């Protein structure tokens, strides 16, 4: 998963909490000295956590739109902008026009768009879609189970565990070789 295609929008779908940590990690992976913009209405985004996750405070911008229309407009503008490497938004419902606009904006800007959404949405703007669920962790790590459910040319069904060390804040991507549920102890290969 670690390399997402640039100039594209990617979606992280999650049944419960929006997987902000996974988005942070992806943003850091693709930042390469650029800027990241959060375009969201989550009221209590903890800046300290974002910075600990490796997003430098001076490259971090946040926009808080008041409604869906503003959010889509702001996200489209952010994606179009070559000064933003990664733009993250949490839109609920998208219509075809909005989805297309986001995609075109990302192509123009050359960065990466990450949309955090619910799995049941029908209209997607994204090149790849990933289903993210919490997985069981331990005293030192928190884990997420990430599965590619739609991807151009990529094998769908491909799964990873993402592991965040709560002491060092390091993130490890662990490929799951056998197709087992994340809750059982998976056979893993460090990635």
């Amino acid at each position, binding site marked *: 998963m670690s390399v997402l295609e640039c100039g594209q929008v990617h979606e992280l779908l999650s049944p*419960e*909490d*929006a*997987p*902000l*940590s996974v988005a*942070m990690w992806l943003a850091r992976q693709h930042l390469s000295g*650029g*800027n990241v913009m959060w375009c969201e209405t*989550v*009221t*209590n*985004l*903890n*800046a*300290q*956590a*974002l*910075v*600990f*996750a*490796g997003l*430098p*405070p*001076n490259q*971090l*911008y*946040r*926009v*808080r*739109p*008041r409604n869906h229309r*503003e959010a889509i*407009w*702001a996200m489209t*503008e*952010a994606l*179009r*902008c*070559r*000064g*933003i490497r990664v733009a993250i938004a949490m839109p609920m419902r998208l219509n075809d026009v909005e989805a297309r606009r986001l995609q075109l904006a990302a192509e123009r800007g050359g960065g990466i768009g990450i949309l955090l959404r619910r799995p049941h949405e029908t209209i997607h703007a994204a090149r790849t879609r990933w289903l993210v*669920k*919490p*997985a*069981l*962790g*331990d*005293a030192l790590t*928190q*884990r997420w189970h990430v599965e590619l459910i739609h991807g151009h040319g990529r094998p769908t069904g491909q799964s990873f565990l993402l592991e*965040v060390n*709560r*002491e*060092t*804040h390091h993130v490890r991507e662990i490929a799951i070789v056998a197709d087992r549920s994340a*809750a059982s102890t998976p056979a893993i290969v460090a990635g």
Partner: protein
Amino acid sequence: MAVCDAARNDGIRIGMTSAEAAALSRDLIRLPYTPQQDLRGLEALGRWMMARISSHVALAPPDALLIEVGGSARLLGGLDRIARRTAASMRSLKVSADIAIAPTAGAAWALAVAGRNEQVDEAGILGALQRLPVWALRIESAAAEALHHIGIETIGQLLALPRSALPVRFGKGLLDRIDHATGRLPEPLHWLKPSWRIRERMVFESAIDSLEIIWAVLAVLVGRTSAELMRRGQGVLELQARFEPEQSPPTVQNIVLSTPTQQPKKIMELLRLSTETLRSGAGFIAIELIVMRSQRVCFQQSALIGAEEADAEQELSGLIERLRARLGETIVTRPRLIPSHIPERAFEWTSDLTITSNNPIADAIPARPVILAERPVEIGVVVTPSDDRTGRPISFTHQGRVHRLRLAIGPERIAGEWWNGHNKTRDYFDVEDETGRRFWVFRVGETFKWYLHGRFA
């Protein structure tokens, strides 16, 4: 109040009733007396003079301007020419005026209000004042009346009185005014400050309300503003657009730019974004653009960094400007890290984007939840049995949902004052429920109450 020369010739005087005046002249035009607007008009006239006669112009409301011409005399070819030039300027504006030149502001004013378009020098000043009425000294009407009662009508008569007796009978003000006029006492004047602000304004005969027309007007004003910016070698950093309805106070839109710009296209784009939702109501009768802040434009700026990087930087500032213009000035924020061990006080989101923070040493502090409530929410928690109520959490209930915990990592003790300034200790636990969701909960050491503070989402 005032009357024009034509009306005066018909016999109309200040202080008449409207009916009396109407009886004297058939084509009488009556205009309301608006001191505020008159003052603005006077200031505008003063600024007009600043550009033509002298940079030192002071207002003497309600109807006089004081212009220091000593410095301009040589430049403009002598006092005669200045007087002629001033008179010509006033004529071209269709403003009737009496113009006098004297070594002191007081004397010039006295001559002008007495209708004596004269020039006097140091030597002639006393002689010229002699025959003028006392009110020409800019004295209070009470003092003028008191002088009238004792038969003093001209300045000459006044000057003949013993100096020492004046302050007692007529107040200190009178003596000061005499001295201002004769030059015995220098008179401080409040010169108009040169206006560095670029203001472009358009007034309409009838109110306009369609956004298309408003934008067309803005485009014209932007064009003029941009031309003036280029002339001055400056770029705008903050622009104010004022939309003035006929009755109510104006609607004001501010646009803040991150880099100084002169480009009309860019300015117009931002104006368009910020006025999309403009409520025109009954329409506007005037629109004005004011450059609130500007800065010298530096063309070498982009040579310092790589071209591509500069493009990206420029696009970023463009993006921020557009977001601010359409969604509000404080819409874009950036984190500022604050050295505090209280989690909710360790950062803030600030719209001041010039603020820079240092990267903290992250691994000194264990994981912090990405969603952190400003105010922790009290929750019910079941803890492991213990004698002193300090057991570890087994499950908690939040919004009617029971979370059975399979992990409780901690406690991490954070001491000190918290949200209400109370001095209490918190014992934090990272807890994970059976589905793998993680929360940040704490127990207050003093009260044993439990709170949910954040989510590791």
